[in-house]
């Protein structure tokens, strides 16, 4: 049986890396006593997989982890209602499991399935008009960004990666929908383009959604029940 859970990564732990988080999850699953399947061979690893890497320093309320349980473990053996609390208890502060679900067999992996993400960007150095200005990027037909990946420099047109940009209701943050297929645009890279007058390292980022394409419409990988969403937003505030 396979599980899919949605979790947060907020607060001081945002400075841990994606690899750090993977190790944390392995330990937490053992501490929670969940019968996780392991790979064969001399160096057995827990069978868990993560979605798109969250950049070190960014926060999220939409991180996904797929967990494969040992053969013979049935849904009834794992109480999905209490599982989020049980896992949150075993994870470090800042990592909270919001919702857990059984993963339907045959479903695509997170890496393959997610097509876009929604981000919030903000900084104490930015005001409402800066976010409004940033939205003008949408008017460009081409946005060339000089960037380095794995030691190679290249100039890429990243405009197609930006689906939408808009200020949040209070105007103090920018909301951006970014494509994740292919060579994705990182929130830090968007910050470089959107706020040329400040150091992009002073811009904070929060991932709020990861979207799947569903018959031409986007759908959140795991939807949050209203009470969980309210609680999560309260923690962030």
């Amino acid at each position: 049986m396979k599980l899919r859970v949605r979790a947060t990564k907020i607060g001081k732990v945002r400075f841990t890396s994606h690899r750090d988080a993977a190790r944390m999850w392995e330990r937490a699953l053992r501490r929670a006593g969940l019968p996780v399947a392991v790979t064969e061979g001399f160096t057995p690893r827990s069978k868990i997989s993560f979605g798109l890497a969250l950049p070190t320093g960014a926060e999220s309320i939409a991180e996904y982890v797929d967990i494969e349980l040992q053969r013979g473990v049935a849904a009834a053996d794992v109480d999905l209602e209490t599982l989020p609390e049980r896992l949150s208890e075993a994870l470090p502060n800042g990592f909270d499991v919001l919702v857990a679900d059984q993963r339907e067999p045959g479903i695509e992996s997170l890496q393959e399935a997610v097509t876009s993400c929604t981000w919030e960007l903000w900084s104490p150095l930015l005001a409402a008009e800066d976010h409004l200005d940033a939205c003008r990027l949408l008017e460009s037909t081409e946005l060339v960004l000089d960037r380095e990946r794995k030691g190679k420099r290249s100039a890429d047109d990243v405009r197609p990666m930006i689906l939408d940009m808009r200020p949040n209701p209070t105007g103090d943050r920018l909301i951006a929908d970014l494509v994740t297929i292919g060579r994705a645009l990182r929130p830090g890279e968007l910050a470089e383009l959107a706020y040329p007058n400040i150091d992009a390292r002073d811009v904070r980022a929060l991932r709020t959604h990861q979207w799947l394409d569903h018959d031409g419409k986007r759908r959140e990988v795991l939807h949050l029940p209203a009470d969980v969403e309210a609680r999560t937003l309260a923690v962030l505030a």
Partner: protein
Amino acid sequence: MSTLWARIEPLLARVQKPARYIGCEDGAITPRHDKLDGGEAVAWLLAYPDTYEIGLPNQGLQILYEILNERDDALAERTYAPWADLDHEMRAADVPLFSVDTHRAAADFDILAFNLSSELVLTNVLNMIDLAGAPIRSSDRTDDDLVVVVGGHAAFNPEPMADFIDAAVLGEGEQVVSEITEVFSAWKAAGRTDRESFLRQLSRVPGVYVPAMYDVSYDGRQISGVAPRYADVPPTVDKRTIADLGEWPYPKNPLVPLTEVVHDRLSVEVFRGCTRGCRFCQAGMITRPVRERPADQVRTMIREGLRSTGYDEVSLTSLSTADFSDIEPVVRGVIEDAKEIPGSCNTMTINLPSLRLDAFTVGLAGEINNGRRSGLTFAPEGGSWRLRKVINKLITEEDLYGAVDSAFSQGWTRMKLYFMTGLPTETDEDTLGIAELAKNCVAIGKKHTSRASVTVSLGGFVPKPHTPFQWFGQNTDAELQRKINLVRQATRRMGGVNVKWHNPAATTAEGIVARGDRRIGRVIERVWREGGLFQEWGEHFSLDRWNAAMEVEGLSSDWYVFRHREQNEILPWAHLTAGLHNDFLWGDWLDALAEAGVEDCRWTPCYDCGVCTGYGLEHVVASPIAPAGGSQGTGQDLGRGGEVPVKLAPTKLEPVGATR
């Protein structure tokens, strides 16, 4: 007192590996700062003067962290050396050294206590004192400034740091931290005035050395005397030692870091002290006697530790874990317990560091590793039997080949052999013996697998205080390099043999500090001021800085490092003792030169090194019989492995001081 987090956070976005600085570990204690804000409790900032990755796993620091936080009159947080990038950002933003637990400024604490595990970290200590906002010289500190304390193995010769520290603790810290807390507490209650009298009070706590309470006089370059400045200050400071490790089952809540560290696994200390008597080994000399943890406590600590941390790997730590007298049943018990943890039975690994060179030990390692064969390390240390008698590492070639054959036959394909160069009486014949041993090991390996390879690792020998080799003149870096080249040359055409070596220049710098006196403090300060941080990291190290500092200060490496000492010379640490009689050490030095070995006194009669008798201590071992597989000097046939227990002559049936 309040957190600096809001000012630290923007800096962390600008540095490599920011997770080093966030704390948040499982097992981390959020101290009750109400204890402090009321003004009563003594606040310790426990510092490791190297990166978080190296420092976090340090067991000594974790043990004291728990013991202090369990006290009502104390609290403790931790800090590690910020890497050069953060150091730069902190200085630019005027952010002081901070704790990783609640991100408070160092100046909010009372005591800044460093664990000194090696000599080359000392420039980092100065940097951290400076970042903390305290004057680096103890004589410049006022009543309100931090009290700087050091402990750990490298604190057994604290003289080079005498100008910068307020106190050094010799030996084990479990009890003495509480005694220091009480003295500080009384000083605080009395209004915290007159630092001098507080330090004088502190110097009367057994095991605590306050350099400012002693005057050192010189006759030219030689030390002519060390005298306490007051009648109530002890003329000699003795180390502290806990009698029974079983009474100290710490750490109870091991820290689990969120980011990768050097020993990313559960560690359980199975015994302290070692009496094998390797003459080069400072750790073995200064941590006597042997005190084993009761086997059932080891098992419980591992079971509870794995459960609470989520680790699936445990390391049984000590100076020579295969010597633990109950090693076999403990290991089997641990494997048994792991079956009860869901998901762990298939993945759990047990680590036995410091493997002994015999077939039994290798067999044990093979059984517990779940088929993993990552690589084995053995430490013959010397290239010939003659030299191994000099250093008292009594491993015969047959022992080595037996162990290696056993390892290759059980599926290992890579082996690492650790040797030292620059040992006393060493000849080129001894050095070339290293290549010969490596060649023979590969030949043995080839019988089992075509992939067999052996890596020879060469470290330059630094004579250490409180050892029989403290009188020996260290080899120069040029001589060490020549010997390294000899081994490289000799192995060039040997298939399957790789040679790695430690930078001889770093060995020389380590030598400057290791047996230095108070005058070396100026050199350390100068190297630090010239930007010499993280000196044990190759990318930051430069011997030129050390040599230049020695020259400016008018000091000579020939005299401090490369010179043999005389018997009647007053060594800089002569007023500090680990309990070893000076005439025992000198006699052992003469035995070394005569190529005579000594036996392991756990299993054989006492030869009176002075520690047990002097401190009223005893070896605490679980069994009067040496562990199967043999112990050096007992003359057992190592080839028979676990089949036969050690036979002790009737007169030797009861090892001196052994208790059950």
